[in-house]
């Protein structure tokens, strides 16, 4: 019964034109420019409107508590810290932006994961900003280098 009532409602909503959503382009790397588009559409109005009825996440049905970064080189200068590694890898662009600006949530999170005490944060942020070029050495820089470089310039 429920499905019949809904079928009528759905038919009446048929006015919304339907276009295929943008093709999937997942982009998992170990450096800058990592954006997990998944199967999400590319911003066109119509394809976005398709997503509206399901809030769909095409990816994960499982519980993504620990995601592997085993294919990326591991940093040398820190003790094993899976959370830090996963965070930097997934948020490298925003972290770079925050370090360049000297402030931001990603930078605060980075400092917390490195266990930088609160009173040392302003100095930590300032040192990273002043040494931006030594942390992000090139456009091909990867997660392990970023972490190692950050540790080097702030010590």
């Amino acid at each position: 019964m429920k499905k019949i009532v809904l079928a009528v409602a759905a038919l009446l909503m048929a006015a919304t034109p339907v276009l295929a959503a943008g093709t999937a382009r997942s982009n998992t790397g170990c450096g800058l420019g990592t954006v997990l588009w998944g199967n999400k559409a590319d911003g066109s109005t119509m394809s976005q409107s398709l997503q509206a009825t399901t809030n769909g996440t095409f990816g994960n049905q499982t519980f993504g508590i620990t995601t592997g970064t085993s294919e990326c080189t591991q940093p040398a200068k820190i003790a094993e810290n899976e959370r830090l590694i996963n965070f930097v890898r997934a948020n490298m662009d925003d972290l770079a932006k925050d370090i360049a600006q000297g402030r931001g949530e990603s930078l605060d999170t980075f400092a917390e994961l490195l266990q930088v005490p609160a009173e040392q944060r302003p100095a930590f942020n300032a040192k990273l900003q002043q040494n931006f070029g030594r942390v992000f050495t090139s456009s091909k820089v990867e997660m392990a280098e970023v972490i190692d470089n950050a540790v080097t310039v702030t010590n």
Partner: protein
Amino acid sequence: MPDRSGTRQSEVYGAKRPVYLFFALLTAMIVAVGAPCALAEESMPVEAILARATAEAIHRERPWQILLHYKPSGSESPRSLVDDPKFFLAPDGKTNPAAELDATLRGLFQAGATEDDTVRCRFPARAAWLQERLGIPTERLPPVACDTLAREMAAVDPQRTVLVFPAAYLNNPASMFGHTFLRVDSGYQSPLLGYAVNYSAHPPTPNDFLYSFKGILGFYPGYYSLLPYYEKVKEYTSLEHRDIWEYPLNLTPEETRRLALHVWELQGISSDYYFFDENCSFNILFLIEAARPTVNLTDRLPLWVIPSDTVRAVQDAGLVAGALYRPAQATLIRHLAAQVPREAQVTALAVARGEAAPESARDASLSAPEQGRTLELAAEFLQYRYARKELEKEEFNRRFLEILRNRSALGAGAGDALPVVAPTRPDQGHRTGRGEVAVGVRQREFFTELAWRPAYHDLLDPSAGYSEGAQINFLDTSVRVYPRKGQLRLQRLRVLDILSLSPRDLLFKPVSWKVNTGLDRETMADGNERLIIRLNAGGGLAYAIDRLGLVHVMAEADLNLSDRLRDKVDIGVGGSVGFVREVAGIWKVALTLKGFSYPLFEEHTKVQAILAQNVRITTNTSLEVSLTGERTFGYDRFEGKMGWKYFF
């Protein structure tokens, strides 16, 4: 103990009594220390526990009903809203709470070969409640090692719960309904390190032509997923351009842990996803109830569950301890742009497009903070472009780094952007249902009108808590009475009415659009007003202009169907132009001019002008006055109407 009161007995055994007592005591101690399980089993056999559970009918108690998602189902026994057979241990568990409880309780006393086979590892929330309710100590149960559960619970470390509400997506009114999910925070300060708990549909084949329909009709399975919050933030703020509201809840760490254990139980369990009722927001409420069973959120299953309404429900239940605003990247971009002169905006855009070097932003004509903000704007806009796949990764990386290098050289205080001012909270806007009582005059005939609209937001409704320029109305129905002529007629039944006016500016160039369908009353060739079935769609442009507000111009097509039309059908093309302006959040005025030509079938033209004003009296009451003039089939018609609108 045998009765030793008799004299003869005491004479015979008198000397040996203390020895007997000593040995009896020693035996008891040895038994108690050496074989606790055996002793406990004797005093708490499985059958006794099961019998007690049945006798006390604990399957009827609220925590059990919540954990199994049982809902009353007419006069029959309750049904669980979960559809996946893997969720139930009894074959008829979906419809038989007592049988399910019995099977779960039995399962507690068994250790399976793997964690998946062990009830205590698969359903830890149920196990915890049953143990507590029936007073079963853990030593009584067979030892099990739920390694995966323990490891993942330690990683999540549940301490606090936050209700998260991503608001509307720019130029997508349907997303105005929003979405809700939960965030579980650990000991970390940063919210980004929490875990998001999300319920959504998982279509097995993406890009399905019937995607929208299937989502509405329950053809997709819905799953709970758990993932790092930062992934959700990026998805909503950078890919979908939706502002996020975070409502910390006052659940204790113990309650949050119960919630996390129930989420674990729902791992990989599917339920039919229905866009209207059993949707993301509704299913999240079960998790909150599992944390605090005294709270009643899923009690009624209304015909439609709107996410912002569920935020209100959680608020009304006294669970909300605040609200934090997290702007979308597009919002942040607009905010940054507003803080620099227009030339700097042009520079930032050019830098983001690769048409100018980042150094050009370090222009002496700009102050140091303005230079910093210009570069920040360029960086954000470049990310925005990349998310829309307007450039390749290598090029993005190179340009991004160049911009950031230049920004870092300016130093800390250079940008120092002011925080984005938070708009009205979505749960504090007008309620989503609306009723209206109006009086008016049409062609000198007095009428009264009653209208009802179950959802959601009209262009003229007060904007607070909603997107500007976005309208989505469902089942907008009105009935008119003309007392002098003794006429009662259905005036309008708009099944669906969507309008999205998105202003274009230097940075963003969206296309505005509209679509509506339903029954309307139109003047016919004979001058009478008849109901027609209408389907109308259009696209156009909108701009925000200082004194006029939101100005829009659209090209439209109009399809009319009616027995009263000569050819039963009429197709018209035309357009509309108009503006909507809100003053001081209280008074809205909108003027719209439309013109249509129906060149095929029954040829005619229609022009119409509508001036409408809405005054907000309280959050949930408004006064609206409108004047309409039109000429259809050569007949002039004028109407004035005044109504009182009430939101519920």
